[in-house]
């Protein structure tokens, strides 16, 4: 059993207009076996949270903490975080020139496990996982993400999730840009990884659609860099019907947040 704990996280970025605070005090606790959905409108800071957990250099943590079983995640480099068991399925996976998928997957697996995977079983595992995600076998010989369609890139992210077996998976809008068939394939992959019982999941999404296939235990609504409402799966249903409008109404997001905090 592992715990990923985010406490009062404040994050800012440098823009041409100066420093801009994006996360304004986010607290979340995810345990092994749990699936948390983070939902919110565009620009609410969902992806910033994902990238900050993974350690993207663009985001500056100004205060707060992220710990994994008590270990200070913020003190770790990007690769150390991955080796500690944090996996980020990216919203826009980049194409990496010159590196084949095969070579990349084996190198990453070796880095994460601290030893090279047994060649025979590894090749078999990769093949099987690719088949389940309906990824063509010839992708293995292509360069990482090079020339892959949007949907193919997302499937390859989930392929890595299944092969690397992280303690915590952060899925950053993995569902966006997918058609229904691809969405199902990807969701099945996440559910398979989750079913091992050794993983906690933070599912970041703009739409409720993916929640038909991946059942969250907790739903957190993000507005303007803060969690404004929290609840169980029923909250997602309500969002599906009502959208995010009610959070933005009236005196603005900050007071919405204050109100929700008062209720809690």
């Amino acid at each position, binding site marked *: 059993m592992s715990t990923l704990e985010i406490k009062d996280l404040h994050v800012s970025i440098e823009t041409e207009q100066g420093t801009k605070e994006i996360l304004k005090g986010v607290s979340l606790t995810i345990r092994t076996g749990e699936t948390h959905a983070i939902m919110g409108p565009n620009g609410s800071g969902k*992806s*910033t949270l994902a*990238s900050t957990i*993974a*350690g*993207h*250099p*663009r985001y500056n943590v100004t205060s707060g903490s992220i710990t994994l079983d008590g270990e200070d995640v913020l003190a770790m*480099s*990007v*690769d150390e*975080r*991955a*080796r500690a068991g944090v996996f*980020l399925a*990216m*919203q*826009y*996976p*980049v*194409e*990496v*020139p*010159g*590196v*084949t998928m095969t*070579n*990349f997957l084996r*190198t*990453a697996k070796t*880095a*994460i496990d601290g030893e090279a995977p047994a060649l025979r079983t590894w090749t078999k595992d990769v093949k099987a996982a690719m088949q389940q995600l309906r990824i063509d076998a010839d992708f293995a010989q292509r*360069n*990482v993400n090079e020339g892959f369609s949007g949907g193919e890139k997302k499937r390859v992210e989930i392929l*890595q999730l299944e092969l*690397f077996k992280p303690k915590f998976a952060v899925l950053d809008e993995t569902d966006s840009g997918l058609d229904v068939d691809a969405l199902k394939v990807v969701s099945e992959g996440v559910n398979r990884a989750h079913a091992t019982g050794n993983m906690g999941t933070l599912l970041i999404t703009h739409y409720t659609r993916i929640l038909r296939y991946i059942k969250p235990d907790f739903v957190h609504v993000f507005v303007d860099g803060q969690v404004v409402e929290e609840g169980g799966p029923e909250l997602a249903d309500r969002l599906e019907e009502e959208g995010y409008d009610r959070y933005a109404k009236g005196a603005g997001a900050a007071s919405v947040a204050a109100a929700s905090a008062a209720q809690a």
Partner: protein
Amino acid sequence: MTEITTEKARIGAPSAQPYIDGFTEEGENLSPLNTGTSPTTAEQAPPSGPLAGASAKSHSHGGGVGVPDSSRAGRLTSYKLADFKPLTGLEEDWRFTPLKRLRGLHSEALSGTAPSVSVTAPEGVVVETVGREDKRIGLAAIPEDRVSANAWEHFTEATVITVKAEQQLDGEVSVVLTGTSVEAAAQHIVIVAERFSKARIVLDHQGTATLSENVEILVEDGAELTVISLQEWNDDTVHASSQQAKLGRDSKFKHIVVSLGGDLVRLTPSTRFTAPGAEAEMFGLYFADAGQHLEQRLFVDHAVANCKSNVLYKGALQGRNAHTVWVGDVLIRKEAEGTDTYEANRNLVLTDGARADSVPNLEIETGLIEGAGHASATGRFDDEHLFYLMARGIPEDVARRLVVRGFLNEIIQQIKVPALEERLTEAVERELAASDN
């Protein structure tokens, strides 16, 4: 939000610059400076055929009209230095080269001591040192630029390496050229692969030199020859090398360029088909560090029918003012029906401040061909790539090596001399390590 900053230069797009003088979407135009000269065809050269380019041919008939400037076939060729005007840097084929750093290769008498030549060859290979009057000199090559002609004018002796007819070599012929002086010098090498022979020859350039070199390569009918030219010079070296191959009927020629060291290295490899059925592969690998200028301009002349060529050059760049140039000219003449050709250049820019110029030119004078293609792409390895790989647990130094090794390995594995492949892989790693400082 992550930003993807991969840049890709596509066909016909002059990289890094929105507009370059003398440039059209279709390719380069020869500068007017190169016209109006009246080249004389040297006596040794046949009156027509590949050695005397179309311009020489037309001039030798007293015409002077010749082909349009835009054609690669119109390039002036001559054995005489005087036929080439002094360089200004505005010439089409010199516009990327910093002439100030040529150390007089284009303007001085090349009277310095040429690098020593040490040949290790399997039994049966004939290695000779001959004078200028040797009849084999000029059989396969004719200078196409002033620097090459300057070397032709000034070399005093040539090394001739002959692989005898039907001789099949097991090991490679190793030719180590070691430079010990910065005085501008001329060098001449002739490689002859006789009928149905099979050989692999490594030209291993080391040390310090200011050198203009002509390498003539004659691949006779049915012969199979690989020539690997390594430039692992010291940082203070300036090297220009014209490496011209003339291919006989049904011959197979593979040319591999690896340029890693030197202040300025400019290679101009060319392949001329003289009879049908021949195949040429031309590969190149270059890795430019801060301040280095590595240039390669190649020419594939499909002058006869039913020949094949395949060109792939890959380059990596890192550091301020690292500059690479790749210009690939492929000419399919009217007679060259049934030609099958492809050329590509890929560059990987590892840091800010580097510049890669890439110009693939394809001229097609007949429609009756199997295929013809050209491509160029220049990509950046940037922070987003690094983040992606590190987010999968891969440490930064491993990530960089992974990318560069993967990128360049495609060329290295063409060499097929295990010891050499290993040496070059290590050399590439050293180049990478240098960037960590």
